[in-house]
C-alpha cells in the first residue's frame, strides 16, 4: 500500500508536505505496518484505516514500525494510545518499533513512551 498524494485540509487546499507512506506486510497471525513521513492530524486517518484492515480475529501480534517517521503530533500519540488499549481489550499484542531520537522525544516528554510497548528491534519476541 502506498499513499503519497498531497494532504487535503478542511478548505480543500493542498498543503504541500513530504509524502507519507504506509506499508503493510502480513501473514495469518502477525502484521507489520511501516510508516514513513509525517504523522499528524492529516495523515492519522490513513494510518487508522490501514491498521484497521489488519485487525482480524486471527491476528496475534501487530508491529508498527515508527523508524521512518520524521514528525508526530498529538493526534499521532493518540493513535498509539488507542491501539494499546484495544490490544489489551481484544487480547493481541502491540509492538512499537522506536522512531529516531527526535520523534522519540515527543513520546518521551509526553510520558507516552514509558506507557506503551516500545521495542528496539523487530526480531525481539
Amino acid at each position, binding site marked *: 500500500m502506498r499513499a503519497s498524494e498531497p*494532504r487535503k*485540509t*478542511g*478548505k*480543500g*487546499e*493542498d*498543503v*504541500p*508536505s*513530504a509524502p507519507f507512506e504506509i506499508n503493510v506486510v502480513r501473514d495469518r497471525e502477525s502484521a507489520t505496518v511501516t510508516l514513513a513521513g*509525517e504523522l*499528524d*492530524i*492529516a495523515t492519522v486517518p490513513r494510518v487508522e484505516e490501514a491498521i484497521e484492515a489488519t485487525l482480524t480475529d486471527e491476528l496475534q501480534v501487530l508491529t508498527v514500525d515508527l523508524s521512518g517517521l520524521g*514528525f508526530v*503530533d*498529538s*493526534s499521532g*500519540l*493518540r493513535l498509539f*494510545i*488507542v491501539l494499546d*488499549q484495544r490490544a489489551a481489550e481484544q487480547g493481541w499484542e502491540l509492538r512499537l518499533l522506536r522512531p529516531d531520537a527526535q520523534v522519540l522525544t515527543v513520546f*518521551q*516528554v*509526553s*510520558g*507516552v513512551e*514509558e*506507557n506503551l510497548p516500545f521495542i528496539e528491534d523487530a526480531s525481539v519476541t
Partner: protein
Amino acid sequence: MRGETERAIRDERLSVILDALAEAVTVRAPNDHLVYANPAALQRMGVSSIQELREADPRSLMGSWETTDEHGHEVAMEDLPSVKLLRGEQPEPLLLRAVHRESGEEQWSLLKATAVRDGAGTIEAAVTIIEDVTQRRRATLQMEFLARVGDVLASSMDYQQTLRNVAGLVVPQVADWCAVDLFTEDGGREPVAIAHADADKLRTAARLRAYEPDRLDPDRGLGLVQRTGEAQLYTEIPDELLAAAAVDEEHLRLLREVGMRSALVVPLRTRERTIGALTMVSSDSGRRFDRRDLDFAEQIAARAALAVESTRLYSERSEIARTLQSSLMPDAIPQIGGWDVAALYRPAGEESRVGGDFYDFWEVDGDWLMMIGDVTGKGVAAAAVTSLVRYTARAASEYDARPAQVLARVDAALRRRPSISLCTALCLRISPDGAATLAVGGHPLPVRIGEQGVAEVGEHGTLLGALARTRWPETKLELRPGETLVAFTDGVTDTVGTGGERWGATRLNAALAQAHGQTAASIRERLVAELEGFEVGAQADDTAVVIMRHAGAPRDDRGDVRYAGVGAAQNG
C-alpha cells in the same frame, strides 16, 4: 382507394387480428383520408366508428389535439409519417406528444408508417402502427427531470435560491406555473419562489399572490396541505371554484386571466413536520394533472424538502459550532493584577468545525490560574471533552490550587469517560508579584522572554486521559517586571509552510527574540504576522497562544503589594 388494400380491409380474418391488437393501427389513403382504424386507434382518436372516420376531414381529426414532437415543436398533418410516405418520402418513426384540447389528456405515441403498394409498385395506402408510449415516455422524462432537480438542489447552500431553481426547472416542462411557499412557525407562509412560462403571466401570478391571506385557511389549498401534510389534486378547476375563491371582482378577473385548468399542491415534508408546499398549475398548455403527475410532484417535493433541511441543518450546525467554540473560551481576557495578558486563538479548517484548543483564566485565593490545552479529536465530541476539562480544572482548584494537582484531577476525570479522551494541558498559577508555578501534561513547554533572551521553561509531564504511569512535576518561577511567559499549543509550532516545512521551536524563538519589554498585545501581533507570513494553505490544526507579561506588582496607596485580582482591586 381500390384494389388489394380495400379488399384486405374488408377481409374478416384480417379484421379479427387487427381488432385484437393493443397497438393502434390506421390506414391512410393517397388523398390523406383515413380509411381504416382498428378499435384501439378509434379509441385513441376519440372517434366512434370507421364510418365517422372516413367521413371526417383528416385535419379536423388532428385539430382536437395540440400536437408537438419531443422537442416541443408543433407537428402538422404534413409531418405525420403516413402523410410523408404517401408523398414518396422515407419517414423516420415520429415520437408525438398530443394533448387533447378539451379534456387536457396527454398522450405520447410512437408512429411508424409502412407503404402498401399495388402490383405496379404504386403506393396504394400507408399503414401506421401507433404505439402508446405515454407511460414509458413520462417515466423517462421524469427520471431525467429528477436527475436535473438533484443537480439543482445540490448546487447551492442557500435554500431560497435552491427552491427558486427548482421552480424554474418545473416550468414549462411539468407545469405552466410553479410556486414554492415555506410555512412559518406561527402558521403563516413565506413565499419563496414563483415561476411562470410566460413573463406577462408571471406578473399576473405575482399580483394574484398578493390576494392570498398571510394566515392560511386550514380548509383549503396551502392551509389544508399545511394542516394535514397531504397532497391536494385539483384535476379540473371550474369557473365556479374560482368564483368561490375570489374575494372581489379584481381577484376573480386575475384568477380567470391566469387561466388555471388544473392544479396540485404537494407538501415539502421533513421527518418532523411539513415545512412548506410546492404548487403546480397547468394553464396554457391545457394539460390536466392526474394521479401520476401528483406522484411525480411529490417526488420533486421530497427532494426539495431534503435539500432545504440539509441547508438549514448546515447553517444551524455552523451556528452551534460558533456557540460551542465561544463557550470554550473566556468572553474576554480578564484584568489580572500585576500582569499584562493577551491571547490568540485561530481555529483550523471548516467554519462548522469546533476546534480542540482552549485556554481559560480564573481567580483562586488572590492568585490566577491559567490553563491552555489541546483536546485531541474534533467537533462536538472534542467540545464536550473541552468543557469537561475546563470545569473539572476550575472545580478541582477550589480544593487544591496547585497546578500539578489540577492536572491530576483532570486526568482522573478524563479516565472516567467511557471512550479514550486525551488532552494536553499546561496549568500555570501566577501571583501579582511575578511568582509563578507551572505544571505541564503532554503539552509543549512555555517560553520565557527576558533580558537574556528566549528560553523554554518547566518540566514535561504526562499526557492527560489514558496513561497508567503519570507524573506532573511542578516548576517554580519568579518573573521580573518586563519578563514574559508565552504558552502555546502544538498547532503553532506545527504550522505547515512551503515544502511541508514546520514552523518549529527555532522560528518561534526567533520571532520572540526581540520581544523583551514589549506589551503582550504587540507580541501577539508579531506572532500572527510571522505565522501568516509562513503558513501555506489552510492549516489542519488549531492554534492557541497565551502571552503573559509581568507588568510589576500593582501597589495600593500605602505602597503595599496587593495580592488580589481585579475584582478586589475594583471593590477596594
